[in-house]
């Protein structure tokens, strides 16, 4: 049986790349300049039966259509917004992804971003490295994290993990989700606007869909207010970024911890001078341990696919 032809869209992870190369026939899309990629896909369409995609570059309708022998898309991550799921379903293409293994890291970072933003950890570090130590009387007092009400948008695996961690700090938890989760004791709000009005730290942890695009709009940001903190470990397009920048510059929003942006890797430069924001480059699952776990899950799913065994983590 011919070796599975696997298209890797981006240079995600050296271990994953090496293993794909060892076990299958690997095609490296990023080695081609963008203008030549369509042609590359056409030339290798007979061989490519699998695509491994990332949050940066997934499998959109055009790519799926260029690959008539495509059988499976493996998404390196739990967010599936860069995979055209409808097209995959229509074409009978299977989709696998990496839930669960990403939960802890993402939740850890959400709390880390909240504390860093509210307690100005990065700003203090930056200040020391600049060679000055602010006199205690001079420094703006920061905002306590313990006991603040944490509102979670999306109470899935990641949202629940955030809640569990925040509870360790004595934070009351509330949430907004597509449906109420009766098995929890957390307060439910049916709209994100009500959630924002009733919490002090709002954490975005839901999937990006048409419905949740710009779900954090100006009205929600204003409801969160000048003492509120926005933490985004979801996707950049969850937030109306222009409005967020303007609110932060005007002092209408207290602080923000952001792992994701609308146009990665570009981050609005107007934020660079602010001491009440933390800006990190989509590192939500970027640990050695989790990257390996994600890669192994992708590899095991592909092996299962070629050996006609059940997929471990199908998306549908």
């Amino acid at each position, binding site marked *: 049986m011919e070796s599975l032809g696997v298209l890797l869209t981006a240079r995600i992870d050296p271990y994953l790349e090496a293993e794909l190369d060892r076990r299958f026939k690997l095609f490296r899309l990023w080695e081609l300049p963008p203008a030549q990629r369509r042609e590359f896909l056409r030339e290798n369409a007979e061989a490519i039966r699998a695509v491994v995609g990332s949050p940066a570059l997934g499998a959109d309708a055009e790519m799926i259509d260029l690959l008539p022998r495509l059988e499976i898309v493996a998404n390196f991550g739990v967010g599936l917004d860069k995979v055209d799921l409808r097209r995959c379903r229509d074409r009978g293409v299977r989709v696998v992804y990496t839930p669960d293994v990403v939960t802890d*890291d993402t939740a850890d970072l959400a709390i880390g971003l909240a504390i860093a933003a509210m307690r100005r950890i*990065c700003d*203090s570090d930056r200040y020391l490295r600049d060679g000055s130590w602010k006199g*205690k009387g001079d*420094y703006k007092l920061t905002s306590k994290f313990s*006991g603040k009400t944490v509102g979670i948008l999306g109470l899935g695996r990641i949202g629940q993990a955030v809640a569990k961690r925040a509870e360790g700090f004595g934070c009351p938890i509330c949430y907004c989700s597509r449906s109420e989760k009766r098995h929890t004791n957390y307060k439910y709000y049916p709209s994100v606007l009500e959630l924002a009005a009733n919490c002090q730290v709002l954490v975005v942890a839901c999937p990006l869909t048409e419905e949740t695009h710009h779900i954090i709009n100006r009205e929600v940001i204003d409801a969160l207010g000048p003492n509120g903190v926005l933490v985004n470990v979801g996707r950049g397009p969850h937030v109306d970024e222009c409005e967020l920048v303007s609110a932060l510059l005007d002092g209408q929003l207290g602080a923000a911890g952001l792992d994701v942006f609308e146009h990665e890797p570009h981050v609005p430069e107007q934020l660079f001078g602010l001491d009440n924001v933390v800006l990190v480059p989509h590192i939500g699952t970027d640990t050695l341990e989790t990257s390996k776990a994600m890669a192994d899950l992708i590899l095991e799913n592909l092996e299962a696919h070629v050996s006609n065994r059940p997929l471990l983590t199908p998306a549908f």
Partner: protein
Amino acid sequence: MALGSEAQGRRGTERPQLLLLRPPLSVLHEALSARFQLLRPWESPLPFDRFLAAHAAGVRALLVTGLASVDGPLLDALPALRFIVTTSSGVNHIDLAECARRGIAVANAGTIFSLDVADYAVGLLIDVLRRVSASDRYVRRGLWPRAGDYPLGSKLGSKRVGIVGLGSIGSEIAKRLEAFGCSISYFSRSRKPQVPYTYFPSVGDLAAESDVLVLSCALTEETYHIINRDVMSALGKDGIIINVGRGALVDEAELVKHLMQREIGGAGLDVFEHEPAVPEELFCMDNVVLSAHFSVETLEMSTELCQLVIANLNAFFSNRPLLTPVSARTRSYYS
């Protein structure tokens, strides 16, 4: 002279005299001015010693802010002193033995800082492991579009965390980190049978079985440089040290050497041996997070602190029990 001062104080105002050594935070300053007759040596043209001789002979209460030292010679200059209140939880800057000898009561900030310090310790640990500050610097330098993704960090869950000093702050840190999936062990002056964590009888043993050491104990003669070269070696080259206690808990020169030689994995430091001096070798390291003794500086804390300081002063001046007296029992909070 003393009688004269007190009489003058009574004629001028009903408010008791309170000596300050340094300007306090403005919110505290305001609250104190309304209730006490403040002696502010920094506003006087007189040198400090002469100010005390001229104005503080009758003063019975002293407020210590900013960890200013209180030693024998200072106490000699304040013959009427009977009460010292410090705005810190740590009391290593006050000669407690001398105070006891002279019958001077001491009050500190008790445990009001514990939550904020615990939050900060967790924040520092996540920052070090996940490179939050380092990658924030990377983004602000415009490197993400130019140099690509930031290198991988390390997962917090399943890390073995060793807490040095399981007092009020250490306990709050333990509770928080458990929720992240860390396993907790500790070293303390004595085993605490009521806690579910593993006890180690020495810091070296604790370090050998830990991936992270968090320092949340008091600075005493016994704990000076308790984190020394041997402990760092036991912790190992991937080990992380988080210090929210006192700088001198750590042999700082050794730590810098270990970091430079990559014989330790990283550090989150809120305190240093010779504040405000920070070893400059640390400034270029991405596996280190530095902060300016900041772990207690929240708006909420400052309000509580004012209330506590004033409550302690009121208690002293009306002969009622202090709210947060420093005694042998209090010191055991931290070790």
